[in-house]
């Protein structure tokens, strides 16, 4: 079937199998490998992207369901040397170890701060509770997102 998906502002027209998962469209077809895949069951959240401004797990969304919609991935968060404050926060607060869960965490974090610019620690923990991290014990991810909340314009140069 033929679909048109706007990914990070750029429309892509593709002929795909109806069963193709959005995560595979992004990774294998469009080469956007920042979005990861870590389970088959919507539990790990390494594949979180935005679908029309809502975080979704792209391993459980068919590419066909994204037809006519907008997708935003981690590759759209920062541009060149310029990083989104959530990206800066993850660097500043050691919110990253192996880097595998990071893109999904960043996409959820950006969405959260867009809707709640000053979230409490509890709200942050709830927001990322559908995603797993095996390296950080979450503490520094929570701190990273708080950092971004406290620096809405990023680090002062």
């Amino acid at each position: 079937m033929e679909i048109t998906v706007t990914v990070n502002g750029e429309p892509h027209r593709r002929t795909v199998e109806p069963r193709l998962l959005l995560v595979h469209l992004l990774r294998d077809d469009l080469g956007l490998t920042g979005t990861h895949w870590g389970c088959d069951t919507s539990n790990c959240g390494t594949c979180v992207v935005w679908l029309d401004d809502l975080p979704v797990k792209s391993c459980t969304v068919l590419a066909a369901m994204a037809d006519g919609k907008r997708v935003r991935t981690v590759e759209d968060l920062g541009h060149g040397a310029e990083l989104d404050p959530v990206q800066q926060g993850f660097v500043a607060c050691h919110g990253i170890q192996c880097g595998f869960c990071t893109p999904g965490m960043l996409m959820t974090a950006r969405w959260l701060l867009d809707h709640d610019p000053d979230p409490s620690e509890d709200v942050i923990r709830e927001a990322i509770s559908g995603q797993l991290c095996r390296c950080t014990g979450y503490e520094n991810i929570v701190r990273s997102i708080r950092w971004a909340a406290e620096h809405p314009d990023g680090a002062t140069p």
Partner: protein
Amino acid sequence: MTYGSLPRKEDARFVRGRGTFVDDLVLPGMLHGAILRSPHAHARLLSVDTSAAEAHPKVRAVLTGKDLAERGMAWMPTLSHDVQAVLATDKVRFQGQEIAFVVAEDRYAARDALELIDVEYEPLPVVVDAPAALAAGAAVIRDDLGKADNHVFDWSSGDEAATEAAFAKAEVVARQDMLYPRVHPAPLETCGAVADVDAITGKLTVWATAQAPHAHRILYSRITGLPEHRIRIVAPDIGGGFGNKVGMYPGYLCAVVGSMVTGRPVKWTEDRSENLMSTSFARDYHMRGEIAATRDGRLLGLRVRVLADHGAFNGTAQPAKFPAGFFHVFTGSYDLPAAFCSVTGVYTNKAPGGVAYACSFRITEAVYVVERMMDVLARELGLDPAELRMRNLLRPEQFPYTCATGWQYDSGDYPRALTLLKEISGYDELRREQAGKRARGELMGLGLSFFTEAVGAGPREHMDILGFGMADGAELRVHPSGSAVLRLSCMSQGQGHETTFAQLVSAELGIPPEEVEVVQGDTDHTPFGLGTYGSRSTPVSGAAAVTVARKVRERARQVASAMLEVSPDDLEWERGRWFVRGVPGRGHTIREIALAAHSDLALPEGVEGQLYASTVYSPPNLTYPFGAYLCVVDVDADTGQVRVRRFVAVDDCGVRINPMIVAGQVHRGLADGIGMALMELMAFDADGNHLGGSFMDYLLPTALECPSWELGETVTPSPHHPIGAKGIGESATVGSPAAVVNAVVDALAPFGVRHADMPLTPAAVWRAMRGKPLRADLAIS
């Protein structure tokens, strides 16, 4: 100072989604592989018909055990002197075992074709319960080895007679059976490989999730018959390892053969169920602990009997002379005059493995049994668990200390760590709060754990894998312009080597860390060594990096002496610079010396030009990090739900290179402890069906189960490591589960609960409260 909490170099790519993990790789003409796995835990293979799969228009090859047998590759050596089937030829021995490999044009077609393969099985009786594996009449799993039973090994350590004597004279003896259940490291990135055989040169390149690339190359060489110079292993970014990516898996080899057969690169990436059901599990130790003491709480002896479930193939990854890993460091942190442990390994119809999940070669199991026994004994004696520990901890003046089973602890100040823990946590106040709650019928528990690890394997004359001594190489070159490249045999899986190793070199040579490039993971571009696991990067490769930097500094001294026309003995080093003693203005920076070393400067006889050195570091001993942990839990009496309210961790890993990264390592292990103690469960039913084969069933802790960690630290340098550092990667995983279980058992004391096995799910806690503890690892009615 170049030690310190420097932000990580790695993060610039990870934060942009620009890391390169194996599944991100795309090579021209690359094909995709998928594995057909057995639904049976034990069955004879009668036939494997691949004709329909081969007829699939997108399929390029189908491999079976028979095809591999023709190449002599149907079986591969494990890291424990056993063999494991790559693709089954005779029988399948666990659910999820590899039977056939399809190579197709895309991921989806490869999976489709698996369904076209027709396999005929003759189901056989299944062995899932380790205690029943040695019973008369139990089905024999390894008939391929000519075995008549499921026995793998017997092994013991310590003085049995002296321990018996200690127990005979003891005023108090406590005994407790416990299971450290089978768990799985479950890194978020599953295992995978891209294999590519060059059609012209015949050189094999494998990009793989490999914590130990050089060890893998040895295995590929032995299995394929290719010499090592025609094999290149590359570990790109690894999405977490924790021991899961130490060993060799059939999928990697299938990708290699797939590439040999098709002449094209082949990618294989396992899915989550494959990862959980077939790759290295951890633990599965059935233990009986016995502890002997005087009435006033002085320890006299410790005895542990272990039945170790090794699954269908003995595939544990640890120094080869130690079939139970380092379990025999089980006397822990205490002054124990007599100790004896014996371990029997058995085969069962479960996946192979056993040493993984940040276990420091089974010190997790060792710490768990001794720390549980300390709490059991404290209850018996009516002593506070903190007081019982304080009375028996090794004292600072006892170091270096040789324990009853022969380990030589390098350094420690244990009472200081426990005292600090009590201060940070407000231990006495928490006990008062608990007493108040108990009086009101509320369930609150405090759980202590004091652990000692032995990490940094190891001295090459005592420790080897596959006969290869566990030393690690390092090479350092300072470029003409003064920046440097350090090449290492270890491999990061998220630990931040690119940052911490640059800091090590920077501290020795004065080159800024950002100008030190760290190369790892590629066997064509790094020196030989055995890789990263068992918390060995800092103790072994870290020491190698410091040693090689000091060699380069000495070379720089020779060059500087030629530049300054003075004797090398008249030169003094200050950070980044050699200068003439007494004349601080006369000297040269490392940058100036590097340029001169590559120039036409005349050098004295015997001094080579350039600034380069290599080293092979074999540690004189292991390093012994330690720590004191406290977990505070509240248990809902109506549901059995455990909530970890606080977790306080005091760690001593000697000198810290990057304290930010050290804290991150500790955080990870504390979360592991909560996962293993409360949530993670791989149960099997009577037919050997794996009931934990997805993240729907194998529950891992999220941000909601984890509290905000409270850390403390003491610093007792290792006397034999060049900068006094010890390993830290696994400390918290090793130390924390006992603290969580001790806390829950403490909370349940009003119900008379003395022990309950992990994982302490609400159901398990509920059952324990009613005096009917649950054996969670078996779903057999």
